[in-house]
């Protein structure tokens, strides 16, 4: 499996899109820090960008890589290699290189800015962890979509729709449902609703850490009152890792029964 990871990773590191993604974050990091001159404001702006953009990039890279690597995959399937290792290795290759671009692209400006000595280092670190989780989650979701759809156009469409739903439509529907049922006790419902979407969960996670109640919103506030800040952080992180494990397991299961 490590070999598959190695070849997928090399393959992506040679693609110009990886560098484009890296340079984008590098530029974003420098701009936000040096124009803003305020680390915690910079982090909030970054948060808003990360929770929308990282899933989108993970989705698009994941689906494009899977379809482009079809020849590579069929070549591997005829070799004495376990199927689950092929898909898991490719997934780690894509997820890993994207995470590396994110961490380096944002990390370098922050180090240059002298963040290592500031108190915001933990907030920033958590932001990167959340970014890495979102990358892995959406890459795994994209792989699932690609495995189920041989037609590239359809697969690409479904994957982007999935992102659109989780990043934008979900919030609208969720809010609407809260308004409609406002006469009922909604705490548990709101709690489950925010856990069922990794993007919402990530936003709450960072805002809990930053301890900015104003920005938390209703679901965040419920989250905080239910779990408290520290327990809330741990619970959110645990659920976020479940959001990685379940789509990955599903991807492997789907890959094991697919015909090539």
């Amino acid at each position, binding site marked *: 499996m490590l*070999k*598959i990871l190695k*070849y997928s990773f090399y*393959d992506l590191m*040679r693609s110009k899109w990886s560098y484009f993604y890296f340079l984008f974050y590098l530029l974003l990091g420098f701009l936000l820090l040096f124009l803003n001159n305020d680390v915690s404001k910079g982090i909030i702006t970054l948060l808003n960008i990360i929770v929308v953009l990282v899933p989108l990039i993970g989705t698009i890279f994941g689906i494009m890589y899977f379809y482009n*690597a*079809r*020849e*590579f995959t*069929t*070549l*591997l*399937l*005829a*070799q*004495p*290699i*376990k*199927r689950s290792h092929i898909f898991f290795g490719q997934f780690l290759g894509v997820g890993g290189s994207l995470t590396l671009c994110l961490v380096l692209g944002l990390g370098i400006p922050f180090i240059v800015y002298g963040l290592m000595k500031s108190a915001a280092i933990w907030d920033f670190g958590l932001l990167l962890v959340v970014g890495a989780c979102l990358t892995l989650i959406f890459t795994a979701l994209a792989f699932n979509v690609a495995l189920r759809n041989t037609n590239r156009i359809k697969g690409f469409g479904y994957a982007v729709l999935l992102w659109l739903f989780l990043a934008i439509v979900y919030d609208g529907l969720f809010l609407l449902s809260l308004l409609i049922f406002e006469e009922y006790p909604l705490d548990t419902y709101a709690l489950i609703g925010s856990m069922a979407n990794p993007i919402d969960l990530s936003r709450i996670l960072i805002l809990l850490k930053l301890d900015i109640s104003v920005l938390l919103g209703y679901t965040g506030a419920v989250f905080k009152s239910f779990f408290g800040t520290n327990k809330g952080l741990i619970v959110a992180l645990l659920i976020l890792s479940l959001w990685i494990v379940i789509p990955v397991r599903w991807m492997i299961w789907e890959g*094991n*029964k*697919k*015909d*090539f």
Partner: protein
Amino acid sequence: MIQISNLHKSFKKNHVLKGIDLDIDAGGIYAILGPNGSGKTTMIKSILGMIIPDEGNLKVDGEDIHKQFAYRQKLNYLPQIADFPGNLKVNELIRMIIDLREQTANHEPLLETFGLNPYLEQKLSTLSGGSAQKVNLVLTFMFDNPIYILDEPTTGLDPNALIQFKGLLRKERDKGKTILITTHIMSFVDEVADEIIYLLEGRIGFKGSIDKLLAIYESEDIEHAIADMAKNMIDA
């Protein structure tokens, strides 16, 4: 060497393999014949584990292959279409496959035979169809394993490469290898095959030597014998 029993496979409503029973002994060249869509590639890919059968049993070298992967160590497979990751160079691909299989490979003489040395630094996406097929052959024949599975290996080969390829086949057969070949070129079958396996509509229609086939249908050449057989089977 390879035992197939009651193999079934459907793709949605298309029932491709309808209960294949087949016993392939070790040693010799087996030509797998049949019209387009008769299930040749599906059967081959089932042996490779690339297609998961709906029903039935597959054994390679006595070992049930369901959910296994290590048995592919004994198999060299040449896919129907030489579809390689386009951004790799020829020598990078060869090195990668050797690295992945962890077997010793003897690719130098093969590269020489097929005149591929000038192309080693070229990207696979820039190769012509014939050259890609030669790379495909090198990748298949560079490992010394007991079973070869070749899906339409002659596609795109020039006459010289074809002669080299036939020589290679005979050499491997003489070493006692089991070689399965699908093809539509009857003169090629006549020249190299020891046995014929004929598939029609997802079932085995005939298995036996060329002489046996010719005797049954009182025919001079394989082409007509096969045509008669197909007609008979459809009538029945």
